[in-house]
């Protein structure tokens, strides 16, 4: 055993061999005859459009689904794990795309759930060693250079923080193969860079890493190998340095025009609220960006603009909508950063799309299915939601297609103010270009948009003006003049108040 390990560490041996793997979900073919090899101690980037089968492949690898056909070998041994714990025991650790944390438990408990350190009270009674647990949790988070209170309840964390906790949980295991499914989807650049530092270190220690992302610039700086899936097949395989256009072509099967936007002119003020440090105003035909680092308060602000009340005293304020139905009635739409918050997974695509405006689709004799079908089919075509099956439960859709359904929901009724929190979270480059194009078109047709995004190029590219937020305070503004750019926004956000 040990001698083989030595051999592995020494040479670049094949660590993971995936041979002729296929997977079906009912009538959908998610993977078809995929063969792939990953060398020991390397970072493989797994690319592909939404629904290409990336998550399915790594779920098979980590024991969540059995493959319908094909073999998987680790170090030349067949490795068909029957469950996630079995895979973890063998050192194969997955950070899934859909995060799972136990909301009622603390950060430390969540991170060390699988292997809580224990001690014996009075030499007898075994119990959890809380101090050791917090210590290790702190050590791991310190490693990632993140500042999260290990005693905080997981449900009080933001999505990005929860993502860091789940990554930390994976790092705590004795990992031989680390699989990350879109880990940076909602992380800001600083956290992303720290994560990459840790990943590079792990690779140098001999851990094999499979990394899924839609951000090609990350692939350039991180990956050693790159595999592209398209429609469940392996479309391309290449080693660094990568040719970006080739990757895009392999992913989409076509050239991509990533330009977005048309001319637009600002109209009347659509919404204006006063915040500590200044006012936030958005006119019709304008895109206002909210820039901020972890804990900026942008999510909270967007939720309040959508009529969600946090229950804190003194927040009754006529500047904000009374409640969510009132906001929707008033033409406001909200795309939350977390898809689980905006879609009812068990409900069909069709019902999810019409849910916010369901009354408008009903007559005295109940739901007007014809009208619903017409609207849903139009929106599914407009946003290119695949598979084109309105009756499919949303949970069967890939992440990016789910995100398009979230947009479709708001387009089904009157909409003149769109609140976006990480709108392209987990969306592939083609869909991202589509969504950017849509946001720009919506603004040129007179809609108002308030956008929060941790993806700075996206934020700056789409916005007419970016308001810098820190803990709910306006700390500055970058407008489209000669200083407009990442540097000046960063300067605002990172200097002390």
């Amino acid at each position, binding site marked *: 055993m040990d001698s083989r390990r030595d051999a592995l560490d020494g040479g670049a041996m094949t660590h993971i061999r995936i041979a002729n793997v296929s997977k079906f979900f009912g009538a959908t073919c998610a993977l078809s005859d995929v063969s792939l090899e990953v060398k020991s101690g390397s970072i493989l980037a797994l690319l592909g459009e939404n629904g290409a089968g990336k998550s399915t492949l790594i779920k098979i690898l980590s024991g969540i689904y059995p493959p319908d056909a094909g073999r998987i070998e680790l170090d030349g041994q067949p490795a068909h794990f029957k469950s996630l714990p079995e895979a973890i025991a063998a050192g194969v650790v997955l950070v899934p795309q859909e995060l799972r944390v136990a909301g009622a438990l603390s950060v430390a408990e969540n991170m060390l759930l699988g292997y809580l350190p224990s001690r014996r009270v009075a030499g007898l009674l075994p119990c959890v060693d809380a101090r050791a647990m917090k210590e290790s949790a702190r050590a791991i988070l310190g490693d990632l250079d993140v500042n999260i209170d290990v005693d905080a309840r997981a449900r009080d964390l933001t999505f990005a923080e929860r993502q860091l906790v789940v990554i930390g949980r994976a790092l705590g295991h004795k990992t031989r193969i680390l699989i990350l499914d879109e880990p940076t989807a909602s992380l800001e650049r600083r956290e992303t860079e720290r994560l990459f530092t840790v990943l590079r270190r792990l690779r140098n220690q001999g851990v094999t890493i499979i990394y899924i992302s839609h951000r090609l610039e990350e692939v350039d700086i991180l990956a050693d190998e790159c595999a592209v899936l398209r429609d469940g097949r392996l479309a391309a395989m290449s080693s660094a340095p990568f040719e970006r256009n080739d990757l895009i072509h392999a992913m989409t099967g076509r050239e991509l025009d990533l330009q977005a936007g048309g001319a637009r002119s600002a109209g009347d003020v659509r919404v204006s609220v006063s915040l500590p440090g200044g006012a936030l105003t958005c006119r019709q035909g304008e895109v206002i960006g909210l820039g901020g680092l972890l804990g900026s308060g942008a999510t909270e602000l967007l939720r309040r603009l959508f009529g969600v009340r946090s229950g804190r005293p003194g927040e009754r304020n006529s500047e904000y909508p009374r409640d969510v139905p009132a906001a929707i009635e008033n033409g406001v739409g909200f795309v939350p950063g977390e898809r689980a*918050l905006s*879609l009812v997974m*068990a409900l069909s695509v069709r019902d999810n799309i019409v849910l*916010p405006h369901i009354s408008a689709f009903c007559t005295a004799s109940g739901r007007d299915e014809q009208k619903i079908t017409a609207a849903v089919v139009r929106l599914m075509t407009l946003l290119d939601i695949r598979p084109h099956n309105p009756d499919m439960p949303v949970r069967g859709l890939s992440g990016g297609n789910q995100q398009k359904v979230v947009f479709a929901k708001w387009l089904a009724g009157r909409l003149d103010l769109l609140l976006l929190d990480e709108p392209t979270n987990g969306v592939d480059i083609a869909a991202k270009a589509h969504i950017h194009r849509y946001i720009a078109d919506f603004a040129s047709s007179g809609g108002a948009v308030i956008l929060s995004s941790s993806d700075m190029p996206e934020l700056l590219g789409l916005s007419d003006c970016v308001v810098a937020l820190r803990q709910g305070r306006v700390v500055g503004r970058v407008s489209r003049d000669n200083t407009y750019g990442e540097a000046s926004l960063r300067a605002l956000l990172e200097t002390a108040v």
Partner: protein
Amino acid sequence: MSFLGRWRTNVVNQIPALVLVAMCVASTLMSDRFLSSTNITNVLLQAAVLAVISVGMTFVVIGGGFDLSVGSIVGLSGCVAAEVMLRAGIFAGVVSGIATGAAVGLANGLVIARANVSPFIATLGSMVFVRGLALLMTKGAPVVGDDGLPAGFIWFGTARLFGIPWPVLAAIFIFAIFAWVLHKTAFGTRVFATGGSREAAFLSGVPVRRVTLLVYVICGITAGIAGVMLAARLQSGQPTAGEFYELTAIAAVVLGGAALHGGEGYLYKTMIGVLIMTVLTNSLNLMGVDSYWQRIAIGVVIVAAAAADQLRAKVN
């Protein structure tokens, strides 16, 4: 492959109906009385009360909740209906019986939706409370009056239209109305959304608290109707009527394949669950299985149904 996959999914989704058919076939083979018209009528009559309760229970379960108080509501509303009927006539009696159910449902809904008490605890409490109220009100004795309940009311419990007992027709009517509400109206879609994900429903503008409140009111109303129907069949208001009905109704809903975590289900499938429960009891009776063994058999069926539900979730 894809054809096989779809076929397998379809078969698994129809397991309850297949079980029902298999049970009917088995009962027919084992007892020649099973298919007699007296027995069929009997099965349908028993199923009618359970069916009406289970209609409301399906709303609550799909809405992500749970209601243990329906059995007690059946008892209380039957007694209230009988008591009022003896003084103020049939119509007033029936209305007040149903209103009693609605009031208990409203109380359940307020405690759960406004005070955020878990449905299990809230309805466990009202199950005991309401039963106590029924016993207190009647001092534990059946409500029959000096010359029995009004003849028109008793007629409803025994008469037939084209050979079908009136309670069965009433159950079918109620099923049809609520199937429309659940599957064809905006409110029904909101119930599914609320049960599927409260947070997502809330952010889609669904008034989740109001929806939660209303499903408990609906459940109270149907339990109230069932109580009145049972009083007509028993020709009296029985304070202990409907004991264990909450469990049978929940079992029927689960047997029909509605997910206990909410957001999924069909009303017609609940009706299949109701028939499974009733046919099971009936054929055990016909075969002369004693009542202790019957309970054991029913317990096994409930657990097996939950296991089948897991299988279904997996295949889907």
